[in-house]
């Protein structure tokens, strides 16, 4: 655990202890009961938030999962199962997982909003079945037995708070692993996330299954709180309200979940005291969520933003290259004479209907080299990168990575095989921190020294910085830092200098030229900035109308009249 993590964990625990003590020692048991309800609701909201606010999916059956957890607890209680409530609650949570997987598996392999529809269908069907079969022991008044230690309302409240805190801390730590970072990332861009070697269906499914587990836990805790259960606690309508509250409050953050839980429990209380009808609550939640969606933020996120603004000042971090650009002397890397082909493209052909985007393209990138791929707009450069990295549905021809055939492999498997790419437009999720992004990109947690050295070298801010705080140019640099952090066999950089100033692009050139020697990674670079190309590339290939029209040592090719002609009318090209 890093020191920052340790600090935030300790602060969370301290706040929870103080709050629990205040509530337990100053309020009557009625209010302790309400707060217990709020914490149990907050636990369920953590699960919804994981799916909805973090991974950006819609799940409308979380309370059905909670019902499964509650049912298991009630059943174990009736059967006088060994162990106590604590174990039963855990088993209840685990019992919900297979249901989550069974529902998520077919829905999440496809894109789009299938999950919303399938969970709606599940909740509607589950409602009816639960309503008729109800909970074990309900008709016979068999109360769910709490262990002696937690038999008082105050102790049970403390138990629920403890469960919430453990979950919140665990989720926070998990969000700093490659899997956890991928949830936030895939909400922003699925393609961008897959390019880091993440299997999108697996990542989504893990988020959904984990949320089912958390929902199951909350159901079990509710069973312990109320002692007796009714189906109405877990209907589709309740699931929808929880989704709506999550959307409004931002329950992927611990404070958002607590805030949402308080809303769910205390809103009815306030309405009752003001003698207002109870159904106003849902209308308020609906309006709040709609408004939150239109603003693109949640209460918890806004609160964090406000906090940051007040205490840290709002600053946009720009590129941090320190050396004087004029002094930088860039030379292309030294390549061994008999270097093997790290990437070998043979007869690559891509058709979109009747349009031929790439026509029988063949070339190789030798190990340890930086190869440039240039050509006018629409020549097929990005299509080539998409094809090689597995983002096209089909193509003809063969792609070999270090002698291994990649054809037919999905994008994330190619990434894992050692081929990484950047995008013309950056696809880094703004909700991540720089450190979490590196973890995601490298598919592992880098050592502190390692990541700090890499970030310093690429002119990026420190790992704690939020992506939303850094400027567009620096994000481009972070793109490059990310792909090389994975230390792949080869990186494909798609216009890495786009959006950078001349000075910055010279500084970037110096880094790119060093990538093979420093990281053992070969480079294929698509670029319009001819200065950059001239400085770093060992060889270049020129693509026009989907065909290679020239290739060879950089300067020679750039002087080729055919190349100059291809660039006429393309203002970015000839000027240099």
């Amino acid at each position: 655990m890093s020191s920052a993590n340790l600090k935030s964990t300790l602060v969370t625990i301290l706040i929870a202890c103080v709050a629990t003590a205040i509530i337990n020692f100053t309020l009557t048991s009625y209010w302790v009961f309400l707060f217990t309800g709020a914490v149990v609701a907050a636990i369920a909201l953590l699960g919804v938030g994981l799916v909805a606010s973090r991974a950006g999916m819609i799940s409308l059956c979380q309370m059905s999962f909670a019902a499964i957890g509650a049912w298991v607890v009630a059943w174990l209680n009736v059967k006088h199962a060994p162990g106590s409530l604590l174990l039963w609650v855990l088993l209840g949570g685990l019992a919900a997982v297979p249901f989550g997987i069974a529902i998520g598996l077919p829905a999440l392999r496809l894109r789009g909003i299938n999950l919303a529809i399938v969970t709606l269908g599940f909740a509607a069907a589950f409602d009816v079945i639960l309503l008729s079969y109800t909970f074990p022991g309900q008709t016979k008044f068999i109360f769910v037995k709490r262990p002696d230690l937690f038999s008082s309302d105050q102790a049970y409240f403390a138990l629920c708070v403890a469960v919430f805190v453990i979950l919140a801390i665990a989720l926070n730590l998990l969000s700093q692993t490659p899997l956890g970072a991928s949830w936030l990332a895939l909400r922003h861009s699925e393609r961008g996330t897959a390019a880091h070697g993440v299997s999108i269906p697996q990542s989504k499914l893990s988020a959904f299954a984990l949320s089912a587990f958390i929902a199951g836990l909350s159901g079990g805790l509710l069973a312990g709180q109320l002692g007796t259960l009714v189906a109405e606690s877990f209907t589709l309508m309740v699931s929808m309200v929880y989704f709506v509250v999550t959307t409004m409050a931002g329950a992927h953050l611990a404070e958002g979940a607590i805030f949402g839980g308080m809303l769910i429990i205390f809103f009815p209380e306030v309405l009752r005291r003001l003698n207002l009808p109870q159904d106003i609550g849902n209308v308020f939640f609906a309006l709040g969520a709609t408004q939150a969606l239109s603003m693109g933020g949640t209460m918890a996120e806004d609160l964090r933003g406000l906090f940051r603004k007040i205490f840290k000042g709002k600053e946009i971090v720009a590129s941090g290259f320190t050396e004087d650009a004029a002094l930088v002397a860039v030379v292309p890397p030294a390549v061994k004479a008999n270097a093997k082909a790290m990437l070998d493209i043979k007869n690559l052909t891509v058709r979109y209907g009747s349009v031929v985007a790439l026509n029988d393209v063949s070339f190789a990138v030798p190990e340890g080299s930086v190869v440039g791929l240039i050509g006018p707009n629409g020549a097929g450069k990005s299509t080539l990168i998409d094809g090689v990295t597995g983002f096209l549905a089909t193509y003809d021809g063969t792609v070999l990575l270090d002698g291994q055939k990649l054809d037919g492999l999905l994008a994330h498997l190619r990434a894992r095989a050692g081929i990484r790419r950047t995008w013309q437009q950056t696809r880094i999720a703004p909700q991540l921190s720089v450190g979490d992004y590196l973890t995601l990109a490298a598919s592992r947690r880098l050592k502190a020294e390692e990541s700090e050295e890499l970030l310093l070298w690429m002119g990026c801010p420190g790992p704690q910085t939020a992506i939303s705080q850094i400027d567009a140019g620096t994000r481009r640099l972070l793109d490059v830092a990310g792909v090389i952090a994975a230390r792949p066999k080869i990186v494909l950089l798609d216009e890495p200098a786009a959006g950078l100033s001349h000075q910055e692009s010279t500084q970037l050139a110096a880094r790119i030229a060093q990538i093979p020697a420093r990281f053992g990674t070969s480079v294929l670079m698509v670029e319009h900035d001819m200065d950059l190309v001239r400085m770093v590339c060992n060889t270049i290939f020129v693509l026009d109308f989907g065909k290679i029209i020239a290739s060879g040592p950089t300067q020679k090719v750039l002087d080729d009249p055919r190349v100059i002609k291809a660039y006429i009318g393309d203002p970015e090209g000839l000027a240099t």
Partner: protein
Amino acid sequence: MFTSTVAGLAAGGAYALIGVCLVFTYRLVSVVNFTGAAIGATGTFAMVMLREQGFSLPFSILAGLACGTVIAALLGAVMMKWFASAPAQTKAAVTVALLVGMIALGLRITGGQHPRPFPDLVPGSAFTLAGVVITRAALVTISLAFIFTIAATRFLNRTRMGLQLRALSERPVSAELIGIPVRKLSIGVWATAGIATTLALMIIAPQRAPNFLTFSMLVVPAFAAALIGGFRSFWLTLAGGIALGLLEGMAAGLSGLAQFRSAVPFLIILAVLLWSQRRARWDEQR
């Protein structure tokens, strides 16, 4: 068993019509609309409440249709004003939130437990099939579903406005740039789906437990139907909706399965998803 299967025909017609409306909205304004059935419920209850106030039936029907249309157009305007360029997930989430609010308000205004005297708009029976009286209402609902399917298909493929609308659902911003009146057209799409759903619910209301919540939840089987059509094909959606009704009817007739008949839409959704899985596909923008 055949008897109970045929008995599901009426329900199937309603599922089909609402499903086709959902596909219509999705294809033209790219919104997966969870409020689809609730819009119809609003218009239907407006009709019966006016009738209770002593207004004439034709007036009540027209006013009810107008109410459903206006509510749909209002929702459409909200979606256009604040969520025009939002991703599909966000738009769907908005409709879920709106559905929660609509149900709360709907139950408040209409009251839950007392039945309303829903007038039989299409009274009488058409013919008897396998011992089941097929009501005119069932026939009309199915015919409406067919008509709407044909109209929607033609509209999308044959008319200039249809082409414009398709362009706009793919690229709303660029469509606006080339002079397509995006807002007006989108709201029109919402209104059209609203009026069709309202009409369908008005016809089947007397033979359903007419409660605002249960009406709004008709969106579940309708989604199953739309999924069968892949949210693309109107004809497959139509067939899917009718098949779903028949399947539910059949399940009600089998003694071992009857208590699980409410799970039929869910099982259909699962089956369709399993079947339609192929390779992971990448969407264009993200």
